């Protein structure tokens, strides 16, 4: 008999403690576990570190809320919507310290963490200044006599936050046919605690029908929560596209502190739960529009 992992958003988010290093699935405007990010902000979490491949709006909201003081990642950008302005300001003010890694270096740090190795090497970054400013990257002679490589120190995040299409109540996580995008492959395997939100909780029989689409086993997952549209306003292929209007509203708000506070109250700290959030952003009509992304 497998252990029950199904819980609520507040209880799942409570597994994250102040000061934790939190790996967040995200690629610019895609696939971020936004319901969990909003809940962390609502609960007033502080001094978090964020690990991300390319962080977008979740990083900007966490920065706006004063919830993070360090970031480990390859880039922070909302692509067509531009730089994450609150994050950028916080970095420039010295409130967030950035460990910038190339994609292979981040993959190596997490891969070493997942495999209980002290480090993994990469050939990326050689010749750049990124090695010189980072104690977690060290040039290493090839013991077999080839060219030098960069040793990337193991990274074990305290928590990984992931969003998925389907999960059963025991924490087995299923993905619909899609690109495995972006960081599902390694972040949860490196992290000590794994929290997953899913578009829908399904019976285990549904996962058994397509075990090739099960991407994380229940024994690795600590908590699972049902959160339909849980990646909103980022996209979650193939179910829904990114919310252009909301990204633009956020970009507009980032120009002044009062507008940021009003935005956060309206969408993040104001709504009492995930269902209230979905109503605040436009309810069924908005969801239907985003589900029709293929027509855009």
């Amino acid at each position, binding site marked *: 008999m497998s252990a029950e992992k199904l819980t609520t958003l507040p209880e799942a988010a409570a597994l994250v403690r102040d000061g934790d290093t939190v790996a967040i699935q995200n*690629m*610019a*405007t*895609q696939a971020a576990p936004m319901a969990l990010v909003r809940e962390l902000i609502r609960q007033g979490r502080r001094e978090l570190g964020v690990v991300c*491949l*390319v962080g977008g709006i979740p990083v900007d909201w966490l920065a706006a809320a004063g919830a993070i003081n360090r970031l480990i*990642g*390859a*880039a*922070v*950008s909302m*692509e*067509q919507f531009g*730089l994450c302005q609150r*994050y*950028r300001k916080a*970095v*420039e003010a*010295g409130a967030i*310290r*950035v460990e*910038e*890694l*190339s*994609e*292979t*270096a981040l*993959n190596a740090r997490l891969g070493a963490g997942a495999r209980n190795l002290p480090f993994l090497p*990469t*050939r*990326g*970054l*050689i*010749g*750049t*200044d*990124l090695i010189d*400013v980072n104690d977690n990257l060290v040039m290493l002679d090839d013991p077999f006599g080839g*060219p*030098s490589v960069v040793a990337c120190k193991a990274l074990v995040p305290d928590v990984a936050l992931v969003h998925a299409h389907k999960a059963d109540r025991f924490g087995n996580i299923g993905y619909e046919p*899609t*690109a*495995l*995008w*972006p*960081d599902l*492959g*390694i972040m949860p395997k490196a992290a000590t605690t794994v929290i997953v939100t899913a578009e829908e909780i399904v019976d285990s029989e549904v996962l058994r029908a397509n075990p090739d689409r099960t991407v994380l086993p229940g024994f690795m997952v600590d908590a699972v929560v049902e959160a339909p549209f849980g990646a909103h306003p980022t*996209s979650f*292929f*193939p179910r829904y*596209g*990114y919310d*252009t209007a909301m990204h633009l509203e956020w970009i507009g708000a980032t120009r002044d502190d009062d507008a940021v506070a009003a935005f956060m109250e309206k969408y993040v700290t104001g709504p009492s739960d995930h269902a209230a959030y979905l109503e605040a952003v436009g309810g069924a009509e908005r969801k239907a529009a985003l589900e029709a*992304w*293929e027509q*855009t």
Partner: protein
Amino acid sequence: MSDWQSSPPADDWTIDELMIARLAACFADGDQACNGMASFVPVSAFWLARLTHAPNLVWLAGAVGLEPRPDRVPASTLEAPLWRDSIMYVEQFGDFWNFALNGRWLTKFCVGAAQLDRYGNGNNSVIGADYHNPRVRLPGTAGLGDMGSIGKALYYWNPNHNPRSLVERVDFISCAGYLGGGSERGDAGLDGGPELVITNLCVMDFHPETRHMQVASLHPGVTFEQVQEATGFELPAPEGKLPTTAIPTDEQVRLIRDVIDPDNMRRREFGG
């Protein structure tokens, strides 16, 4: 297959179309190409090459969707509308790099950088002297920090040629070019390196020995003096008359406007 070979130079063309046609010419039939985010010029160039001289140019859209069939260039060059109808999804974070790090595939890479210096080093990290206390925090190196160091031929595109983007020395190297010039890149054990810089004013390449950036061709109507004025370091004086960059053909312009990018997404990169 269009009649691109017999098409005359266009009378009606714009600078974005010229840059796309010039970049397309860098990709040969049988090459593999991939793109990252906000890459409208490279995406349009790959697509144009596939419709003209390089029908077998393999395209890995957004580094995720192989041989996609988008109906036009969408607002994002990472999101699903670009990689619809792919023949294979490549897992971006892990498996993509198994292809890119292997020396045999994806041997050319297009780079956009906030700063680019005279030796072809790129910066997307920070503006200012102190990395930990930057004057401006840029998005970050993403895949460039890898692509510059793993033997790729790098093609920089810059739609806004000015002294702030083309500088004597980048504030911070987040994409390795020829480092301090001369043999430094090779001495560091790195193969490949910057090949071309295609801007809205000219095409530049790198001197085979000094590895200093130099003008290879001027776009129609642009003078060397204008390029020098818009560049933050001294360019080597040209020996003799510089060639003029080829004007895109009627057929290339038609394909870009009507087939590839009818929504003019490519224009978003210009005028920044």
